[in-house]
């Protein structure tokens, strides 16, 4: 399940599923086109992401970029930080601390 929260200029998308894989990534893909100027994906409840999940996230990011929007990630576990860096996803979706969200311009 995915829930969007408006925080002024920023939309925070809470990904409320434990696993982002080939099956659950479809829900993220369905969210493509619903990004805001600044969108932060919240991974607090996500325990597992595989390459099919990364592909779903990338589709969301590509769709957002086409609309001139920027996508960030927050509450990313140390393991997922490593994986995002490994595949260079963090270049296209920088990781921010939750406390920094209100400062993103």
């Amino acid at each position, binding site marked *: 399940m995915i829930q969007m929260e408006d925080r002024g200029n920023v939309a925070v998308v809470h990904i409320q599923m434990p696993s982002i*894989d*080939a099956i659950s990534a479809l829900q993220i893909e369905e969210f493509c086109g619903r990004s805001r100027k600044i969108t932060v994906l919240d991974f607090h409840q996500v325990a597992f992401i595989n390459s*099919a999940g*990364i592909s779903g996230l990338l589709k969301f990011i590509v769709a957002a970029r086409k609309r001139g929007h920027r996508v960030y990630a927050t509450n990313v576990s140390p393991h997922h930080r490593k994986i995002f860096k490994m*595949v260079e996803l963090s270049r296209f979706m920088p990781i921010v601390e939750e406390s920094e969200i209100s400062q993103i311009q």
Partner: protein
Amino acid sequence: MGPANQVEMSIPSDLVFERVVRAAAEEVGRQMGFSEEKLADLTLAVSEAVANAIEHGNRLQQEVHVGIVFCMERDRLVVRVVDQGEKGEQPAIRCRGITEETIEQGELRGLGLYLIHQLVDHAEFSTSEEGNVFTMWLHINPRDERSRRQER
């Protein structure tokens, strides 16, 4: 009867069952005394290998099964994933992560094998009478040994 250090599974080629193997991999890794970091690496690598076998090997034909064998050796875990795809059809390994160029070209998938090769100590593809076999080796390192001793 099978060897006492071996866990064998067989799943239909449906991506839902990749989750079952993932859960088993985590438990096997715990039994091996892997650190939390290594457990996460193992789980992801197994997930990728099984998803590849389901999608690219058995082409999502549910009646065709993917076989998985976890072999727990003294100083390493060996995982074999077997599919019934076209023999010898070795998948291409992507040699880079996501770049502006790959995005331009619409290459938004295909990171699975790239990740596996980053996460495990060694991986190789072979063919046998069983089918196409993808084998991964994960060695126990000193950090895992510490975690194993603490568990006991």
